[in-house]
């Protein structure tokens, strides 16, 4: 083999190793910097209190408003997205089995909406909000985020539902079940771990996104207490604290970022753990 060929191979091999390990390195840097900066400013006070007057200029308080606000908003949005998304995914996989063209059409539409940036949903949500006469509120934020995570929820569930073997459907129909029963009683049980993963994945996206709640959820220093009132969210809380001229408040922003990251990491770990637990009732074919 030519010498230049050998050199080329060696060069690229080195480049590949650099590329791969630099990705891992960057991940390490990100986690380290968020943790290091965040842990310093993290305190029980931050986690358990709402912002007192002048919080953003250095006075006391915490981000409990944002923590609870984000959790309730994400929870509501995930629930709504599940209520709308599960039947759609089941319909495509169980009821439309015979109609290939429709299946392709619906999956195509799902593909289309899948990558739409969250700010587009935010702008749309804002317009809808005005049209429906809603103020910036927990409800408006929830509805907007629901639209945003719907494609994610449906696509994840669709992917897992496709793995159900035909033989199981055949066996269930032979017992005299109708399509609804096959869908809601058998398909769901068969893919329960995948469904839970889809739900938790969507929850993670819902709680971390800022652009969709920017115009629709508003902001407040209070704890969430009504659907019709504005609610604080962690991403926005981080942003506002970071914009403060006071370094102590900026430090709190890092702590808040750490809190948000930890919540999301916990959710994703939980989803892996739950997935393994439910595996035992699933049949492996």
């Amino acid at each position, binding site marked *: 083999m030519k010498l230049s060929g050998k050199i080329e191979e060696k060069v690229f091999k080195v480049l590949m190793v650099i590329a791969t390990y630099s990705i891992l390195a960057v991940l390490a840097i990100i986690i380290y910097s968020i943790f290091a900066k965040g842990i310093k400013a993290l305190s029980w006070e931050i986690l358990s209190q709402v912002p007192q007057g002048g919080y953003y200029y250095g006075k006391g308080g915490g981000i409990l408003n944002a923590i609870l606000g984000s959790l309730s908003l994400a929870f509501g949005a995930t629930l709504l997205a599940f209520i709308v998304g599960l039947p759609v995914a089941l319909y495509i996989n169980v009821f439309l*089995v*015979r*109609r*290939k063209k429709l299946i392709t059409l619906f999956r195509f539409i799902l593909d289309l909406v899948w990558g739409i940036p969250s700010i587009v949903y935010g702008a749309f949500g804002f317009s809808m909000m005005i049209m429906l006469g809603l103020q910036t509120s927990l409800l408006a934020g929830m509805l907007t985020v629901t639209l945003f995570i719907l494609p994610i929820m449906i696509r994840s569930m669709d992917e897992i539902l496709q793995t159900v*073997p*035909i*033989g*199981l*459907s*055949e*066996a*269930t*129909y*032979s*017992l*005299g*079940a*109708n399509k609804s*029963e096959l869908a809601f*009683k*058998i398909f769901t*049980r*068969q893919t*329960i771990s995948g469904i839970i993963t889809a739900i938790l994945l969507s929850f993670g996206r819902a709680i971390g996104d800022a652009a969709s709640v920017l115009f629709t959820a508003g902001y407040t220093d209070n704890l969430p207490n009504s659907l019709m009132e504005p609610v604080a969210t962690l991403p926005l809380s981080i942003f506002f604290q970071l914009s403060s001229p006071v370094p102590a408040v900026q430090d709190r922003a890092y702590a808040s970022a750490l809190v948000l990251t930890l919540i999301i990491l916990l959710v994703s770990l939980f989803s892996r753990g739950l997935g393994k637990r439910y595996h*035992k*009732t*699933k*049949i*492996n*074919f």
Partner: protein
Amino acid sequence: MEMEPTHKIHIENLNVYAGKQQILKNINIEIPKNKITVILGPSGCGKTTLLKCMNRLTDLYPELKVTGKVMINDKNVLEAGEDIVKLRQYMGLLSQHPYPLPMTIYNNIAFGLKLKGVKKRRNLHKQVVRYLQQANLWDEVKNRLREPASRLSIGQQQRLCLARGLAVNPEIILADEPTSALDPISSQYIEEKFVELKNDYTIVLVTHVLRQARRIADYVVFMYLGEVIEQGTVEEVFGNPKMEKTKQYLGGTFN
């Protein structure tokens, strides 16, 4: 004059197409009541497709187009509307691979019973026990009823599927090579069970194993490349085959 029909399933001019290819060509057969009818033939001759036509599971395969008549109890299965759900219950299915429902052993049987309308817990339990006993599985699982069915061995799972199928009181049992994935002991067990069951059920068994057919068949339908070559009692087809292809297949001079 006979008051009771001797044939349970009556198939007329059945044709199945997969796109441009024709999988089943002009099938006309009669499946006799309370007998074991074996549909025999080399791989790829369409026997599984034929079986799936009988309870219209071909619906699950979008590429298949089915024309003709499959008459069961004076109803054409292929044209049934919403009552296909009930019609399918008349025909229990035992597949090549066991497909237990993703539930506990108990619920695998209870699922079908609930579909049939059995509600009271005591009644349900009695019947679950009864069908598990019928499939000779009861002793092995009586202490494990609330465990997931996936923990059973393949042979046990297949017996579970049999029990589950019997629990909905079918009149016909459709079996698609039910022993090909099993060890010899489990296979033998299933075969013996079928011979017992034929007194109360009509059994249609698909297989490509000649010896199995010789062992348990009453009636034989021999298929090749989507066509029925010969059908008749086991004495007629095995003892005195009329068609050349049948002779070749039985003699082992076949690919």
